[in-house]
């Protein structure tokens, strides 16, 4: 392959081995790959294509079908803003606009310093807290757009 090789961790390698011949293996394995690399690098997709004997075209068909899978490296802090029904009705669109304006990027872009990226997601499973924003695994509920600058500043200070 012309694309550089990639190193899978021992855990990932054994996960791939375990799932190699099981039905529905591709999505399970892609989840695990994204967990390791924060996205699905091209090299990883090619490695899987070889290991699983699945054409690269099929792998990209799956990766690009699901919003969850990323083909580019997201920011260190992934901001997910929920646009599910409850959050949308509670004004989460304004949270997105506020975040985009503070960071100077639009959805699916990454800030120049690599710190932040924004994803619009559909329901994170806690509609009672609508509107909801997540940064990494941290959930911020019942938000107003006035609270957004403070949250972002906190993560910027962490670096």
């Amino acid at each position, binding site marked *: 392959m012309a694309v550089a090789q990639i190193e899978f961790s021992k855990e990932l390698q054994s996960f791939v081995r375990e799932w190699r011949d099981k039905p529905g293996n591709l999505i399970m394995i892609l989840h695990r790959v994204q967990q390791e690399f924060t996205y699905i690098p091209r090299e990883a997709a090619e490695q899987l294509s070889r290991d699983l004997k699945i*054409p*690269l*075209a*099929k792998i*990209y*068909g799956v990766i690009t*079908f699901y919003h969850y899978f990323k083909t580019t490296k997201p920011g260190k802090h992934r901001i997910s803003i929920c646009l599910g029904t409850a959050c949308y009705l509670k004004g989460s669109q304004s949270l997105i606009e506020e975040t985009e304006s503070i960071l100077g990027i639009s959805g699916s872009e990454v800030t120049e310093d690599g710190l932040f990226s924004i994803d619009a997601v559909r329901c994170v499973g806690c509609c009672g807290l609508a509107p909801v924003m997540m940064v990494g695994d941290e959930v911020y509920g019942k938000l107003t757009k006035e609270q957004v600058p403070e949250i972002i500043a906190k993560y910027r200070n962490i670096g």
Partner: protein
Amino acid sequence: MVNAKINGIPVQVAEGTTILDAAEKVNVRIPKLCYNDDLPAWAACGICIVKVERNPKMLRACCTPLEEGMSVITHDPEIVQVRKTVIELILSTHPDDCLQCPRNQSCELQTLASEFGVREQPFEKRLRDLPIDTSTKSLILNPDKCIRCGRCVTVCQQMQNVWAIEFLGRGESTRIAPAADVSLADGPCIKCGQCSAHCPVGAIYELDQTKEVWDALMKGGEEAKTCVVQIAPAVRVALGEEFGLKPGTVLTKKIYSALRRLGFDTVFDTNFSADLTILEEGTEFVKRFTDFASGNNKELMPLITSCCPAWVDYMEKYYADMIPNFSTAKSPMQMMGSMIKTYWAEKAKVDPKKIFSVAIMPCTAKKWESGRNKDMFSSGERDVDVVLTTRELARMIKQAGIDLVNLPEEEADSPMGPYTGAGTIFGATGGVMEAALRSAYYLVTKEDLKDVNFTGVRGLSGIKEARIHIKGIEVRVAVAHQMGNIASVLEEVRKAKADGKDVPWHFIEVMACRGGCIGGGGQPYGATDAVRQQRMAGIYSDDEKSTYRCSHHNPFIGTVYKEFLEQPGSHKAHQLLHTHYRKLELYNK
């Protein structure tokens, strides 16, 4: 059997027959767009919806089997309205540049819009402005024109097992593209063009090079070139379809006249160089087989044919371990190209630099082949300057106002025009094998076969096998066509080799397209198995009518060896008529 009614007409069909096929049995034509006879139904477009009594839903005729007692309505005012809306919705994301479109008048969407009398655009136009991929120099992918019917993806993945393209994204942003959005040329595409032959619209089509040929034909004075042309076996039995003739009509001598009227100075026939290929490849086979029979170079068995450029590309990408088994003989087109700019140039006293060499092929991959590696420049120049597909030639003939059907017949030029029946059958699957066996038998025994017909290797069955006995030794051959059928043959060879067992076959013919070149990606649109059968029948009738039916009987083949090439497999023949292969990556970027 299932008994049912379609528009009140009783119909009896085998269980599992779809409503679409059942309707055709009683002369009812349900419109189709994503559906194609070669492919499994995919139910993407919705144009074939029908009503079934006591069922509140409209059903898609392409994927719904007819059931016992069903009463189907295929046409009523409401159904017509729904179908029209389907077309209007598709058109809302489709550019309106029909007049500039390569599929103008051969577009299935355009035909439907015309039949349904679409006159307005009730929906907001939403075009996507995606980049056009021109990277392969054979095929052009214009995703803006794509109606996402999925035919090309199914062809590329299921029929051809190439996996060059896939649906990327979802919903409104779904598009057809290679993995990771690389260009076609940087991915596994083998340029077979079956995607273009199955695309109902102008989303994938051949690179049009007619202008380059017109320019060369027009050049005068200092810049003038001697324009030499060759036509492939499969072109002669399909070109007529573009002029209202039945598939399989053999037009060889009318095509020669048409080419002269277009302005070509010299007309040769690829069938001649197919005969030449048989001498080279047949000799190669006999040598390898004789070695094999005496226990030497066992790893060089089986010999695998290399006439098909899409197959060469596929082998270099997917089966590079078989390179030693590949015939080193060039394709007939490249042999002819090389002979034109060396042997003929010398004989006709024309400077090879002043020759413009054109090949008319049923194939899009041939465009790529003509620049494949340095062996395609064996004369010191580019051996074949431009390759035109059958479709492009049809356009040139129409532009020139040539009444092809009523044209007087002419002969090809000597010495690389006259051909044998063995040369002409190269155009159909099994033909190269049959032609090779006819001559291999002679090369070993110095006797001719009593019956030259090897019907076992003919026809549309995906993999065909045959055995013949030459001097008491059994020769086992296999023929595969349609790229997706190749894997099982080669896997069996790989396995036998790995296990140290005798190879299952000694000689294998592979053609990338269904039916061989007669079903090539550059042939007139609308090939179904019925059309392929007719084209094949044309090929075999041409064979039967030939004075000579074995390549080694072609008197002019004798002449070129005597005057120029010395003997099959000579040093000179190797320089001009053979080539090299190397492993290719599936993805370059």
